[in-house]
């Protein structure tokens, strides 16, 4: 188990009902995609937030990453919808 800080933004945050949390992630969860899948199983808020996992984006330590990025060593992982700034 590794403790990781998770942060959520926009409707991901609203659906989960939390802006951030610290979770203990099992060692079997190695990629961002696997982490999203594992979070889906934590309750219906999470299932709702990740109901279409392909559109949820992620950042590790404040850098955009792809679904297959390894989470090992991450201090902070963020999940959010596609960005709409500018």
């Amino acid at each position, binding site marked *: 188990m590794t403790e990781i800080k998770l942060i959520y*933004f*926009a409707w991901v945050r609203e659906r989960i009902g939390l802006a951030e949390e610290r979770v203990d992630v099992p060692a079997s969860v190695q990629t961002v995609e696997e982490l999203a899948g594992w979070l889906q199983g934590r309750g219906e808020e999470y299932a709702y937030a990740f109901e279409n996992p392909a559109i949820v984006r992620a950042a590790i330590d*404040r850098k955009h990453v792809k679904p297959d990025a390894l989470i090992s060593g991450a201090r902070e992982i963020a999940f*959010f*919808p*596609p960005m709409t*700034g*500018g």
Partner: protein
Amino acid sequence: MDARLIVRVQAEPFDPAAEMDALAKLHDDIGAVASFVGYCRSEGGRLAALELEHYPGMAEDEIERVVHEAVTRWPLSGVTVIHRYGVMRPGDGIVLVVTASTHRAAAFESVEFLMDYLKTRAPFWKKEHRADGSVGEWVEAKDLDDKAAERWQTRS
């Protein structure tokens, strides 16, 4: 390349004139200053406001990365990018991009590049506040924006 680079992520309004002036006056061989300001729209009266959420820390980092990319691509003397967060009313400026160069093509292209990349990479999200007082939707990202950003990948 000793370009003057300014990136700010702030709640406060910005002053396009002051930012453009600062770049225009950097030195005697600035020949071109191009700028873009993106404003909050009412969408025909449908919206009372837009609320911009952002990822503090990453927003600044990501914009800085894009700005550094721009100065490696074009001969720029200065770049200023300011992106606001919080509640914007129709007519409020949300984002400002200004670039200065000796040559006009560099100024034009870099502003467009910066805006395209900000739209798709900077961690900001817009939520609508409807004019009728009801809670609005999160603005959906446009495929168009991804396409606009992608075109820069085939160049250079």
